[in-house]
């Protein structure tokens, strides 16, 4: 299996034999589509279920628990319902744009899966310009959102679309600049290359490589939250203000595409942060072959899912920014700081060569900083729990 996959994944030149090329091309296409449909769709569905269950736990509710064990098949039931629903297009809507918009959003996010690795060898396409490709293909999403907002012919949708355009285009800059610092440190645009430039131990992660990348991680994370329309930046679909924002007029399967894209986006954001800062699939060299691949997949997925959890957690904790405050945060703070980051990373790389003792010490110091920050956070949580006098903690997620 491993060899078969390797052969498919292996980059190859033009053989001159049409039949072989056609089989190879179709095989790749089949593999990619199968991956998207069989793996990614249920995966995003399960993320949606997880988000609802986690939110319910945080809000002292139960959440979906009827379809399948613990409600884990809720996404399938929801999807089925959406397919069966009437597909409504408003009379005054721009029909072409209205129908095209959800697919554009969908393609933008699912296209990103093409370069997201699952393990060292398991990736649909390891593009040389992977980082650039991710930034570019996900830019289809705001386009789709603006299209849907405009084509709905509804002022609420339009407001949502406009907010989205302003937001995503603004936050693209700090996101790209922070990623640029990573690219600078890794010396490559390929996502696999970026991961290979890191190691399995936290001291080898770009997160702790130097102080600039350490802060850059937070800028990148915040900017990605904003690009993914997640709280506290969920202004485009602010349900208490804009009803449902750009997707107000959508129903049935088209609406489901928006929702699917939203949850797929959750994983894309988490994976890109993981690749850029958290060492991706790097594992200690304790196994090889299929076991290694599985281990890498598990590690990669675990890191990404932790980030997904953090994003969900943030969503159900924070209020929403106002539209001017959102722009203020980006242009007055994130953009200058991430410029500083690129510069700082470059200077750091000049002064402290990679692999030098000073660099190692700095990394470990930063790991310590990170650990103590988490420790402080833990203490704070403990104090709050004590003050709140909650009595017993319910740690079983399914209780």
């Amino acid at each position, binding site marked *: 299996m491993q060899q078969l996959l390797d052969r498919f994944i292996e980059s190859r030149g033009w053989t001159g034999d049409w039949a072989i090329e056609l089989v190879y091309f179709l095989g790749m296409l089949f593999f990619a589509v199968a991956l998207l449909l069989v793996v990614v769709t249920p995966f995003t569905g399960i993320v949606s279920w997880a988000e609802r269950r986690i939110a319910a736990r945080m809000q*002292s509710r139960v959440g979906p628990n009827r379809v399948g064990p613990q409600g884990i098949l809720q996404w399938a039931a929801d999807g089925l319902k959406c397919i069966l629903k009437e597909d409504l297009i408003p009379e005054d809507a721009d029909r072409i744009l209205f129908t095209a918009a959800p697919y554009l959003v969908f393609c933008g996010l699912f296209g990103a899966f093409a370069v997201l690795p699952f393990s060292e060898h398991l990736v649909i396409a390891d593009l040389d310009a992977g980082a650039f490709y991710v930034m570019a293909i996900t830019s289809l999403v705001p386009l789709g959102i603006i299209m849907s907002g405009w084509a709905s012919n509804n002022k609420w949708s339009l407001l949502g679309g406009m907010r989205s355009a302003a937001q995503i285009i603004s936050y693209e800059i700090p996101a790209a600049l922070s990623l640029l610092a990573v690219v600078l440190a890794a010396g490559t645009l390929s996502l696999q290359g970026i991961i290979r430039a890191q190691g399995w131990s936290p001291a080898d992660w770009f997160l702790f490589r130097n102080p600039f990348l350490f802060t850059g991680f937070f800028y990148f994370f915040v900017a990605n939250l904003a690009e993914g329309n997640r709280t506290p930046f969920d202004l485009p679909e602010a349900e*208490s*203000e804009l009803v449902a924002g750009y997707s107000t007029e959508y129903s049935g399967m088209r609406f489901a595409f928006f929702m699917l894209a939203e949850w797929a986006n959750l994983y894309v954001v988490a994976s890109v942060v993981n690749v850029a800062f958290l060492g991706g699939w790097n594992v200690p060299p304790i196994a090889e072959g299929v076991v290694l691949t599985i281990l890498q997949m598990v590690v990669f997925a675990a890191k990404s899912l932790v980030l997904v959890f953090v994003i969900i957690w943030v969503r159900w904790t*924070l*209020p*929403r920014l106002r*539209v001017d*405050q959102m722009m203020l945060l980006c242009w007055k703070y994130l953009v200058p700081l991430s410029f500083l980051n690129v510069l700082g990373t470059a200077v750091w790389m000049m002064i402290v060569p990679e692999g030098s003792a000073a660099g190692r010490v700095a990394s470990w110091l930063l790991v310590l900083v990170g650990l103590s920050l988490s420790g402080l956070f833990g203490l704070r949580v403990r104090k709050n729990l004590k003050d709140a006098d909650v009595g017993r903690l319910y740690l079983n997620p399914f209780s």
Partner: protein
Amino acid sequence: MSPPSLDRFRSRLAGTIREEPNPFGDAVFRAEPSDLRDVLRSLRDEHGFDLLLDVTAVDHLELPDSKPRFDVVYILRPSVGSERVRVQCRPPDEDLSLETVSDLWKAANWAEREVYDQYGVRFRNHPNLKRILNHKDFVGHPLRKDYDIKKQQWLSEPDDLMDEMRKLRGGAEGEESESVLLNIGPSHPAMHGALRALVDLEGETVRHTVPEIGYLHRGFEKSAEKGTYTHVIPFTDRLNYCSSVMNNVGYCRTIEKMLGIEPTPRAQTIRVVLLELGRIMDHLVSVAANLVDVGALTNYWYLFNERERIYDVIEALCGARLTHCYVRIGGLAHDLHAGFEEGVEGILRELPKALADVERLVARNRIFLDRVVGVGAITAEEAISHGFTGPCLRACGVPNDLRKDEPYYGYDGYDWNVIVGTRGDTYDRIWVRMEEMRESMRIVAQAMKKMPGGPVDVDDKRVSLPPKTEVYGNIEALMNHFMIIMEGIKPPAGECYGSIEAANGELGFFVVSDGTGKPYKVKVRPPCFYVFSAFPRLTEGGMIQDLIATLGSLNIIAGELDR
């Protein structure tokens, strides 16, 4: 300014204005239409009656003194203090118009529109005299006694509000394309109930706001004239449905004032407990919804779980969760049930935890503070001019609270504080409510501790039904029962204004009795009617998101706003 004093006013205006004797002890002055403005201005500027509570009218068609037919009533009160004064004025039948006072009090703008809408009394020089509760194409004035209630009117065309918006926008027709008009509501998740605001947007900045109310107008005041005094109690449940017991008490207290009845000590204490539980429920809903409006969704469940806990207790008490209908004229429907005390203890134990949870989530949250501090701010002077009462006025720093100003039911016997804010913004309104819940819990705890024994109904044949054993065994009791049920409780003829401090502010009932078992007129003074009249002032210049945060903090309840 010297403290408000009616005696000074009496001596000052002796001769120019006539004081009318009132059977219920209210201070009522009769002004001539030509003097009306001067009298009201003098009351406001020289005697400290700076809060115009309500303007209404009485149709004297079926009363003995039916000439001139309409009597317009202005109810005033100092913003801090207990005295209350009514100035009444009869416009001549042939002209049926009075000079407006909307330039003296901003509250008069909507109040006079309502009088015009319901009675057809016109106000000269009013800036915008159009219907407010009824539909724009409605024919007739429904609260007139000769309005045929069975006459049905088919009204389907919504008001585009462009007449008001054009005035606000100014300029020529061609210039209008620069900004966008947007209808927020009446069906919008953030417009709690059915409110509508037409806003003029420049980008996301609100330039002008034109609110429209009346989507939930169901003619409470007309319906109240059709049944007996007891029949009105369930209707009052639907006024502020977030704390319906407070409306029950407000209404029954007014009728008891007319009858000269004081409820028994036990009934009073139970009413205090229920009033404060009602206040807590109302504030819980308001704060929770407000936090949802700024996007802090999780707090909603923390607060609503506690609201459900209170509902469970009240459901066990009276069988209803939302519309309690537990209070009766002269007492209560029945005594407390066996588990009530434990239920209240549970509330007092759990509610502080929920409030602490919410505080931990938002109190020092930068995003939350940025969203609410300084948003929708109003000064105390303006708030008083708009007729604010309750938490919204206290948020501006005015310690206006009827429970302190005019203590009833022994509120002065409890140890509690009036919570005031400083800036009058959304943050202060949320926090005044948060702290008031804590004060209410203190009152509930003290009231439960001192709960006296004894009956809950007054021993008065005019209002209390005799016990069933008596009714079946004794002809006198049977007749008494029959008379109260069939003819109703009969307060003496006259006009009376009674009010309590409801969750949103001063909830007043102006009741006119003609001596029969049916109310001649019941006028509600809903606190949020006046609060909502300041909505354009609070929102213009902010953004859409500010408008929604501000609206949440005002706690507009459509049931009492539109009646």
